[in-house]
């Protein structure tokens, strides 16, 4: 239902901040404030990232040292292994990347950056988180039911996922599907909120080209998500019917078509990549401009490339199905569109690199993360070309090469993007500074092992090894000692990387309580969120700001200061 009455009146001209004291419940558990809902998403996302990381640790231990008792899990059976990889993928994409990059940063940043007091539908916003939280509970329940958790890969191809006699998880697969569907509903509601807010609630004077890139990117991502998710929800309902009501939508024996699911799934699945990529790109744009003290090189070009990516992203999805039995002629078209989409993405990277030219670069922790994003994402981008080219995909499809490729895109997006954003906005979110020294230790301790994990996997993929095989000892020819050594290297790197994440947690918790008090604008940034107090009170601004200029006016000649806030009249 559309909600037309704002839950609290628009902020009066001045003297807003004295809201009546709210109870613990209405402040932290059922909040209407966009910042608190953002925090809820953030902390749920971090908790889920720990779960996903733990899964990765468990199955990588099994791969490196087949058959050992993994500390913290025990023996990894084939069913365990399938469930672990399936849920690692699903959690990292649906319960980490989406909530953190879109929902947490979107909720926190959009109203602050466009200079208004809250989302336009605060109650729908709260409902969105509640549905999301419910989806988390359902997902956890899917591990506890009889038969165990779903293990048919995050793509859930039927007939394996559709029939209990094939998957052997009669309840786990249905609950998993339900959790995913609920999660989609949550983000659909959230996305509608983001788009409407950004359209209708911008501060006076803020024109189209005065909107910070990160807001644009989250809005575009929400539009793409909204338009791509429908067919998958349709498919999920059909699959659920197949599982629980005995229909035969995907059952060839009863007139159904198993390839149909792939059709519906990848129609969503590929735009989804760009749905999470764009917000991360936006975060990087904000950070690079601030710490290079530079105006963003060709702001409009970034926008156009984002539009182009959005349009093209709907036309590339069948490249996941090259060898899945589709019409071989379709592969030509999708090869062309897939390689075409490399153009806007490459251009976006060029813009960011060009922004550095002539800058005055300060290598603070957020800047290190933002730069690392570009450097690492480039690897993910160029290896994607191998997979988009139909002829080469015949060999690489479903191999470790694919796995390494998309981890080189998703890791920068979900993890590096998240760390960039959190280290940059932490002072605004919590009113305290993070420790820079610990932040840098954490940075190097993450980036170096990250490459140690996934570079070896490219070689395994080139050697023709496949994903989702729990023990390569069954393939004596393929599992040579050299290749096994690479697997061990990847696992050890993962252990090191996970260990360094503790540094972040310590830093986070310690700074939350004892960090140095953050000034209002510690980075001397232009965008509106830094013109609100740290942390912003309910209602955000004492006076709703008026915008006079674009967000990236750094180092303007002839000014004493090298920054020029968007709301400064002169």
């Amino acid at each position: 239902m559309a909600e037309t009455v704002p839950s609290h009146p628009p902020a009066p001209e001045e003297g807003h901040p004295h809201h009546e004291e709210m109870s613990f419940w209405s402040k932290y558990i059922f909040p209407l404030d966009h910042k608190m809902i953002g925090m809820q998403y953030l902390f749920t996302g971090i908790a889920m990232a720990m779960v996903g990381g733990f899964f990765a640790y468990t199955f990588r231990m099994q791969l490196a040292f087949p058959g050992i008792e993994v500390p913290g899990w025990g023996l990894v059976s084939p069913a365990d292994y399938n469930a672990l990889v399936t849920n690692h993928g699903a959690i990292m994409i649906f319960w980490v990347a989406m909530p953190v990059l879109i929902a947490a940063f979107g909720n926190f940043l959009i109203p602050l950056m466009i200079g208004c007091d809250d989302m336009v539908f605060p109650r729908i916003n709260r409902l969105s988180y509640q549905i999301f939280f419910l989806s988390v509970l359902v997902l956890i329940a899917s591990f506890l039911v009889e038969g165990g958790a779903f293990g048919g890969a995050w793509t859930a191809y039927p007939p394996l996922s559709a029939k209990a006699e094939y998957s052997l998880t009669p309840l786990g697969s249905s609950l998993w599907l339900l959790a995913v569907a609920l999660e989609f509903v949550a983000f659909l509601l959230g996305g509608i909120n983001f788009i409407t807010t950004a359209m209708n609630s911008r501060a006076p004077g803020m024109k189209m080209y005065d909107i910070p890139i990160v807001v644009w990117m989250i809005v575009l991502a929400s539009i793409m998500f909204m338009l791509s998710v429908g067919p998958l929800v349709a498919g999920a309902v059909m699959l659920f019917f197949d599982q629980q009501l005995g229909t035969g939508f995907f059952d060839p024996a009863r007139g159904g078509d198993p390839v149909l699911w792939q059709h519906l799934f990848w129609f969503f699945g590929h735009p989804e990549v760009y749905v999470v990529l764009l917000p991360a790109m936006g975060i990087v744009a904000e950070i690079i401009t601030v710490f290079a003290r530079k105006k963003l090189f060709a702001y409009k070009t970034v926008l156009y490339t984002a539009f182009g990516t959005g349009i093209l992203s709907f036309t590339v999805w069948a490249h996941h199905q090259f060898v899945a039995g589709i019409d071989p002629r379709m592969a030509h078209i999708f090869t062309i569109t897939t390689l075409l989409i490399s153009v806007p993405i490459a251009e976006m990277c060029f813009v960011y690199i060009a922004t550095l030219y002539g800058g005055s670069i300060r290598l603070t922790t957020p800047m290190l993360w933002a730069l690392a994003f570009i450097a690492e994402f480039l690897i993910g981008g160029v290896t994607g070309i191998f997979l988009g080219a139909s002829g080469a995909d015949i060999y690489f499809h479903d191999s470790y090469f694919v796995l390494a490729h998309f981890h080189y895109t998703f890791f920068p997006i979900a993890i590096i993007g998240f760390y960039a954003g959190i280290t940059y906005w932490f002072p605004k979110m919590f009113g305290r500074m993070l420790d820079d020294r610990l932040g840098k230790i954490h940075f190097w301790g993450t980036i170096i092992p990250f490459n140690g994990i996934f570079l070896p996997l490219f070689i395994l993929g080139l050697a023709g090894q496949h994903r989702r095989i729990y023990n390569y000892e069954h393939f004596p020819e393929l599992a040579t000692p050299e290749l096994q050594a690479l697997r061990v290297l990847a696992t050890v790197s993962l252990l090191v990387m996970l260990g360094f994440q503790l540094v972040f947690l310590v830093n986070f918790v310690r700074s939350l309580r004892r960090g140095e008090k953050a000034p209002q604008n510690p980075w001397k940034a232009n965008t509106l969120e830094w013109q609100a107090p740290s942390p912003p009170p309910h209602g955000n601004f004492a006076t709703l700001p008026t915008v006079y200029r674009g967000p990236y006016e750094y180092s303007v000649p002839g000014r004493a200061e090298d920054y020029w806030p968007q709301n400064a009249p002169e």
Partner: protein
Amino acid sequence: MGAVRRRLRTRLAGPLLAAAVLVAPGRALACAVCAAGETNNRAEFILTTAFMTALPLLLVGGVVLYLRARARRVHGAPPSPTSALEEPRRVA
């Protein structure tokens, strides 16, 4: 926006033409692989692929055009600075 569309049109036209050329002889060939797949819903697969690919773009395009038209109607011919979809006006 006009510029975007123009650029996209020129950028997309070539590859799309090439695609059409590539696919057309395939159909004429009636190659053995295509026949051996032996499913009678190939046409539907291609049709729905095209349909689902085009539909979101048409929807968004339609909404954007509608909003532009509405912006013109509400704010008069040169859109006012506070409308949602105006072109930026930089005062030199």
